[in-house]
């Protein structure tokens, strides 16, 4: 047997800024901050409250779905079905509204759809012992198919204004008119952060992602834990889909096509490691906002369309490389 090396002592003295740099969100926060500075100097439209809240609102559904995505990645898995679940949940909500179910019940139906999709994912992954990549890839296709099948491809429109208001109206907070989706996003960020960092359940998710065997040996019900992780991901994706539907006022079965990649990218830019066991919700929030600020900035700067996509790809890789570099130094 090899003798394990002693863990690094917690008692060594560190400067406060060292702990700051060591924090996962630091790299991405720095990056976002520089982006904001550059865009504020280069354009006179970026740093207006309208634009900033537009960007935050556009980040909201991506961020909400990314919270769930991040939980699955931290737990050592992945959920590729988030985009399709967003569309399906929005559509179910739309259909329920049109059927006269009322706003709360219809939103409940949308969230339940996400819960069901997550439950199927979770059970197949834990009980069926199938790789999460395969199961959720199947769900990506199945959920999209159900969305098309429910409406024969037609979008659901003429949604009641009580519902559309939830996505389009603002809440006056002091001097600011904060869009409701942004408030939903911040609330869910705080909630998921609390669950992950301040509960035993959250600790187990990190443990599961770090080492499944060790978690199992510690007597934790790994299978049940996995099911809950995917249910959470499904419900959060559904919440994102419902918010997006309310903002657009239309539920299209084609909505959120390919968003799983934006969502995974937001989580990774925010410091979630694909290897599992690492990442925070505030980082994910910053990741989602950074992606939108970047996209918004490229439009405001008037960069030719064709090159915007390239710039976004380059920046994703650069942000993650910067984060890894920081992690190796700290």
């Amino acid at each position: 047997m090899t003798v394990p090396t002693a863990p690094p002592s917690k008692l060594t003295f560190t400067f406060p800024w060292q702990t700051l740099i060591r924090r996962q969100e630091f790299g991405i926060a720095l990056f976002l901050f520089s982006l904001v500075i550059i865009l504020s100097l280069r354009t006179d439209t970026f740093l207006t409250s309208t634009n900033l809240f537009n960007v935050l609102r556009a980040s909201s559904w991506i961020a909400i779905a990314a919270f769930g995505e991040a939980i699955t990645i931290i737990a050592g898995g992945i959920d590729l079905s988030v985009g399709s679940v967003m569309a399906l949940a929005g559509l179910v909500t739309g259909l329920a509204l049109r059927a006269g179910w009322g706003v709360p019940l219809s939103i409940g139906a949308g969230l339940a759809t996400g819960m069901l999709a997550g439950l199927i994912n979770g059970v197949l992954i834990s009980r069926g012992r199938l790789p999460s990549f395969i199961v959720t890839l199947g769900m990506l296709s199945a959920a999209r198919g159900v969305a098309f099948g429910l409406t024969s491809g037609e979008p659901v429109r003429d949604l009641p204004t009580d519902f559309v208001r939830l996505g389009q109206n603002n809440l006056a907070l002091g001097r600011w008119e904060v869009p409701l989706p942004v408030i939903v996003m911040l609330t869910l960020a705080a909630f998921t952060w609390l669950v992950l960092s301040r509960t035993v359940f959250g600790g187990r998710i990190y443990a599961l992602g770090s080492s499944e065997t060790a978690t199992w040996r510690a007597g934790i019900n790994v299978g049940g834990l996995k099911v809950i992780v995917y249910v959470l991901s499904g419900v959060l994706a559904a919440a994102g889909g419902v918010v997006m539907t309310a903002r657009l006022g239309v539920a299209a079965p084609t909505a959120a096509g390919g968003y799983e990649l934006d969502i995974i990218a937001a989580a990774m830019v925010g410091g979630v490691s694909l290897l599992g066991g690492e990442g925070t919700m505030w980082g994910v929030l910053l990741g989602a906002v950074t992606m939108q600020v970047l996209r918004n900035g490229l439009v405001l700067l008037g960069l030719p369309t064709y090159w915007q996509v390239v710039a976004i790809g380059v920046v994703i890789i650069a942000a993650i490389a910067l984060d890894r570099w920081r992690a190796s130094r700290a």
Partner: protein
Amino acid sequence: MWPPGVAENKTTSHTEAKNKRRKRTIVRALGTTCLIGLLGLVACGPATPPARHTQRLTIAWIPKALNNPVFELGRAGAVQRAAELTAAGPVEVQVLVYGSVASDAAEQARVVEDVIARGVDAIAISCNDPTACVDPINKAVEAGVPVMTWDSDSPESWRFTYLGVDNYQGGKTAAQLLVRAMGLTGQVALLTGVPGAYNLEQRVQGFTDGLVAYPGIQIVTTVACNDDINLGVQVVEEVMQSHPELKGWFFVGMWPLFAERGSMPLWEAAAREGRVKTVAFDTLPVELDYLKEGYLSGLIGQKYWGWGYDSVQIVYEHIIQSKTFAPFTDSGMDIVTPANVQVMIDAWKQNDFSRSLPDPFPTP
């Protein structure tokens, strides 16, 4: 060498295929006649006279995807023309609609192969990919099934004609509509879908060329939305912010207009106050409502209904009347302005597009 050999093969198999088809049609016609005769013998004094159709023409109508409502309209047109032709006799025209659920070139190729195996007299198809469609179309022609394309072409294949819209001309028309609405000077912006999509690029090119004659009009930016409603809404608002002087928009497709009122507050306010004039492609009911309410100044639309109605007519003329067609058949375009929008709205309501649109710019 290989290439000439291949070319030679093509021509022979093509004629062979034609002969085969003719033979088969004759056999089928004979068969049907015999059958009807037999029926007449067996059923003495039938209550209703048997249909006087001596021949049946089965057309497989294949859209790009089943999940797009515009194709549903095309299907309705195809079914209507088939019913009309059947009623006129003597040929019974039957339309079978096949397709993959989503737009997918490989899946569509499989559908075409299935259709050939099933046995039809002709295929009318909207290709997901011009190149990927070549082989399935040629296989069908080899099997004696003539093929035409509509909406989206496969120019390299052996299809006998392509019924489609001239997108370049459509872009030019959009430029004229916008100039009429906004005047001879000012800034305009373009919203496109997936950068590089051929039909969209053609419209953009036509629009740009159409504005060359107006030096006072300047295209300040072109933004893309990847055919995504949500992204379309976002980029339109962003351009409204960064270009407060903007006077005109050309939406190369209708993406942001799918969203409900209230999702683009800046654009909506500018459009209501008449500061910004917008011209868009397509003439779906959502857009017609926007036009009627004064948000849009003009629409240029493909004739979705004609995709079905006209393609069935073309196949009929080609097979039954042996008419030949040029490689490109212009399907024409609908131009909708406040002057004729009501007619278009009614057409959608009654699902009847057989009436032609009134002049978009009537002379008072």
